């Protein structure tokens, strides 16, 4: 491949990747998956594990939704984390305990599924300690990667 073609390929690749970023709504990270809820939930759990996290729990928060007239009862919160990392961080910063483990909310919207998380990168507003900032950035990076995996699953 000639140098100009190579350059064009890279430019196009970068353009594609930049277009594939997780949409942000303010300080939240959010994606829409074309998969139905059960498949998207499975994809999300696999993506969380693939990025090195342990899934600690899936919490239903939709009990009573259908009783209250909603057409969906597909709303869950998925908790996850890395035990060693959480242990180390909360030993130094117990004020973070209430925000951990990490979590993503997933809910059905018709035949599609939405996944949303508070952007961990924005936690720096809440917890300005310098030693936490790199961790928040890494969590943000991981959130984006996990959400991209879910968004692209078909």
């Amino acid at each position, binding site marked *: *491949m000639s140098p100009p*073609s*190579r350059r*064009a*390929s*890279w430019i*196009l*690749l970068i*353009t*594609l990747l930049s*277009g*594939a970023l997780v*949409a*942000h*709504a*303010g*300080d*939240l990270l*959010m*994606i*829409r998956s074309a998969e139905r809820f059960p498949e998207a939930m499975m994809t999300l759990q696999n993506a969380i594990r693939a990025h090195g996290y*342990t*899934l*600690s*729990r899936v*919490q239903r*928060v939709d*009990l*009573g*939704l259908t009783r*209250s007239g*909603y057409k969906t009862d597909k*709303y*869950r*919160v998925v*908790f996850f*984390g*890395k*035990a060693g990392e*959480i*242990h180390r961080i909360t030993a130094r910063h*117990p*004020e*973070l*305990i*209430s*925000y951990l*483990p990490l979590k993503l*909310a997933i*809910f059905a*919207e018709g035949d*599609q599924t*939405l996944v*949303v*998380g*508070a952007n961990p990168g*924005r*936690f720096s*507003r*809440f917890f300005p300690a310098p030693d936490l900032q790199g961790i928040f950035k890494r969590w943000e990076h991981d959130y984006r990667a996990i959400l991209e995996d879910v968004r692209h699953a078909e």
Partner: protein
Amino acid sequence: MKTLPSLVTMLVLAAVYVLPVRAGTDVTGARLYAQNCAVCHGADGHGGVGVPLALPAFLDSVSNDYLRKTIRYGRPGRVMPSFAQLSDAQAASIVRYIRAWSKTPAPHFSNAPVRGDAERGARLYAVQCAACHGADGSGGRGTGVTFSRPRSLPIIAPALRNAGLLAAASDQMIKATLNNGRAGTPMVSFRQRGFSARDIDDLVAYVRSFASATSTTPKASAAGPAALIFDSPYNLEETVKNVKQAAAGKNFRIIRVQYFDQGLVPKGAENTKRVIVYFCNFPLLNTALTIDPRVGLFLPCRVTIVEHAGKVQVMSIDPKRLSTLFNNEELDRICDKMTHLYRDILEESTL
């Protein structure tokens, strides 16, 4: 070079990535819409967490300038964020893409101000508009159509006092909406209902008067600690019991008690000095979901009890602080109440 993707592969990927795109539509706009808007407004513009955009009654009554400015300023406090990071060209591409959902050409409105009597307009507003748009112009409740309202009722009465709306809508556009209404929505034609040109001008003047009390600049985040933490004079077990009693006393149902690291570490290896009490008030939960479907990030309600070096503490998130991430004033109000409730529970359990 073998490690480089071939140009052909890239072009195929590009084609796949932008599809499905309607023939004759703005490809850049489609990509930008998919990237920035579809997650809330739906891939086809039929709404979700955000309001539906692909409604003829809506598109036929708003100008491209209004749409561009809405992208630029968002709706402070009404979920729709500002996309100030997009260039003018990118915003224009998105508008072209959205506009293609309507077969009717975009209306144009002049920027000529409407002169009217705002005080008289206020009296008319109280009788004719406040029922839907709110007495103070704060708009209909909820966000889009995910949980806020039936999909058969996709319209949400806009917050007329919202700085983003007032920056986007010209006087002439507001006047045209009052004159013509929006077919198929509760917004009727005031002209057809017998309102005079003067009445309508006075209403426009009143709506415009909201602008003096609003700003498109986002509010600064509340300062202070993001976690509520209280020292407990009791031991861990007694404090857990107290938290459960205090939460029940505030009409929450205890749904689960578990160790903080349960599920993260092998069973039996949990730190038994960190306990989470989960609780829920289902009516409150359902109310919160109608206000913002993303509210699951607060759920379930929880207090954590921690014993360290012989000292016991109870702690929770501060919902008021977390709410600042959501750009939703209605949610802010509920979270303000939740912060008080959490404080009460933490205080009562450590008295």
